[in-house]
């Protein structure tokens, strides 16, 4: 059996530099074993401050009621649900990278999957805050759980998309967490076995569940990951589909559209990858992981961004066309007046969304720009802003003028506590992410080791040499054998 598996030499290496197994461990785990930098402390303190502001905003909202927000009878969903859908969308990239790309056998996922999964989990935690606190009487939140109760028993409505959402998001969170943590176990054991301090030995010893690296355990682990990936793939598609049902099953003009499920899923992947770019560009620089998250990785993600961005753009145009073609005056009014008319109160947000999500990602058709880290970083921020505006446009421009002109709303702008709540979730997200980046391996160490000999730069060079030296022999031994 030829152990040096053949991978085309034309493919870029996924691990740069002259690495061996031990060097990979060193590179990825060393940041955990060092004192955090000043930059880390500054970031951590800022995120705690934001989090505290968020806690105060939520305290105001719970104490004084939803009136602390500038919502009204016409605009019942504003920033809160916009933020909810935005965070949930961001939470889609992690599982997509680790599940769908695992099924598609994409080697480059190994560089970014761990951090992207962590991002998913934290983003879903942030997303969950919005519907929970939006309940107003949050002490009754347990009413959404179906259980035999003393109220009849009065059950939840299983036919309602809002309840499907409860199930979809809690399932998504649980499955993502299990997937992430089961993948972390071997790497935590690596940290444990290198640990010098008492705290690290104890903490990583407990966290790694006594992982030993036994062949049988690896065999089960591989099987588990594969099946979890298979389960997560339809799951990740179902979650945003169900979120889109919250809108699509209603009869509100602008929401009552059958295109919503695929359009929301594409948008979610689009914004999720943008957030992964934002985070990974910083992480690779700060933790010095440029050899593992290469420009090739960034380019691969930019390709997904341009693909999904174009799907989203196509969906925007389709729904506009259908609104006109469908000849429903209310639907057409929502699109032509509330949205596409630049001089209507919220027209600016529609065109901002169009620019950020449809026009700007087209830059990535150029290979040079795809591989430019500064451009990618700014683009990722623009896409995140654009995707936030997409949800804002869908929600606010649909409800602020409904069927009855007498109940049309005045201009809605958020109160300081609405903004504070949103900033608070940023605080929560980065609080979790800073802790993760400090105490957990941000790259899947074992998975990188597994691809080293096919995709490592030094091994690729070696392969090229063998290939050149004796092409015929090489073909017989390496290529023909494989077929």
């Amino acid at each position, binding site marked *: 059996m030829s152990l040096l598996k053949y991978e085309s030499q034309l493919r870029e290496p996924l691990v740069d530099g002259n690495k061996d197994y031990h060097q990979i461990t060193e590179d990825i785990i060393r940041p955990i074993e060092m004192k955090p930098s000043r930059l880390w402390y500054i970031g951590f303190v800022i995120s705690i401050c934001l989090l505290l502001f968020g806690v105060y905003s939520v305290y105001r909202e719970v104490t004084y009621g939803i009136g602390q927000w500038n919502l009204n009878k016409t605009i019942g969903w504003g920033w809160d649900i916009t933020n909810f859908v935005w965070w949930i969308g961001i939470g889609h990239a992690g599982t997509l990278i680790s599940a769908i790309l695992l099924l598609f056998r994409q080697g480059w996922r190994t560089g970014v999957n761990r951090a992207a999964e962590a991002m998913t989990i934290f983003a879903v935690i942030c997303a969950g805050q919005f519907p929970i606190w939006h309940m107003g009487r949050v002490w009754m939140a347990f009413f959404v759980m179906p259980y035999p109760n003393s109220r009849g028993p009065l059950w939840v409505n299983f036919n309602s998309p809002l309840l499907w959402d409860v199930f979809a998001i809690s399932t998504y969170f649980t499955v993502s967490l299990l997937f992430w943590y089961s993948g972390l176990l071997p790497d935590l054991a690596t940290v444990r076995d290198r640990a010098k301090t008492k705290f690290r030995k104890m903490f990583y010893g407990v966290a790694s569940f006594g992982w030993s690296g036994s062949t049988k355990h*690896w065999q089960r682990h591989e099987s588990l990951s594969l099946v979890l990936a298979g*389960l997560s793939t339809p799951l990740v598609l179902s979650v945003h589909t169900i979120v889109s049902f919250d809108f699509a099953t209603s009869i509100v003009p602008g929401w009552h559209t059958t295109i919503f499920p695929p359009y929301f899923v594409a948008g979610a992947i689009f914004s999720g990858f943008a957030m992964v770019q934002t985070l990974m560009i910083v992480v690779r620089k700060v933790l010095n992981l440029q050899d593992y998250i290469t420009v090739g990785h960034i380019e691969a993600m930019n390709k997904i961004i341009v693909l999904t961005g174009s799907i989203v753009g196509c969906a925007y145009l389709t729904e506009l066309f259908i609104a006109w073609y469908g000849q429903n005056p209310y639907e057409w009014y929502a699109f032509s007046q509330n949205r596409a008319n630049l001089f209507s109160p919220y027209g600016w947000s529609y065109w901002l969304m169009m620019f950020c999500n449809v026009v700007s990602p087209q830059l990535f058709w150029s290979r040079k720009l795809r591989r430019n880290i500064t451009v990618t970083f700014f683009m990722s921020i623009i896409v995140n802003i654009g995707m936030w505006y997409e949800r804002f446009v869908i929600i606010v421009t649909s409800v602020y003028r409904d069927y009855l002109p007498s109940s049309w709303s005045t201009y809605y702008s958020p109160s300081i506590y609405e903004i504070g709540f949103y900033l608070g979730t940023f605080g929560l997200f980065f609080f979790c992410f800073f802790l993760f980046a400090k105490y957990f391996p941000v790259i899947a160490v074992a998975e990188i080791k597994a691809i080293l000999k096919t995709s490592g730069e030094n091994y690729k060079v070696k392969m090229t040499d063998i290939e050149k030296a004796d092409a015929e022999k090489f073909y017989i031994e390496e290529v023909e054998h494989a077929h």
Partner: protein
Amino acid sequence: MAGGIKKFVVGCFDDEKVLFPAVKNVRKAGYKIHDVYTPFPVHGLDHAIGMRETSIHTAGFIYAITGTTTALTSISWIFTKDWPLNIGGKPHFALPAWIPITFELTVLFSAIGMVLTFCYLCQMAPFVKKHHFHPRATDDLFVMAIECTDKTNDAEVQAFLTQAGASEVNVQHAETGWWIGRYDREQKLYKEPKAIN
């Protein structure tokens, strides 16, 4: 859990390219490989040391259909028998509307069940401690443990492993099961008498 203390000859290999022929030779020589500990999943190693396929995915399927059945039976009982709620005059038995929740519970049951099964089969949990033959088995070494019987001449096995390419060879007495413990403390096997204060 009790596994008992056994004697092992341990050989450490630097590269899986050396490990594979070594595994073959060790098995051919009739020695019993207890396990091979590797820093990452080495493909084909499970078959090389003669392990059967895992059936954890079958367990996953069983958990999945349990989830499907749980969702369908509970929702249909709730909405047709226990509290038939009239929603706009639509049928009580509204199967299409239950598909999302049924799907989510299928996935949820399967994922949780499989992870718990995985932890049970591998005997893994917080505060579980095991004997590790070499600390670098999770870093860059491929560690083969050969179980010794009364008849085994361990010097011979050690020589055999060295010749097969092992970079480090030794003999260890090890507990094969697990025990409750912490990794920052010296390992105390459950068999040792406890100090009474």
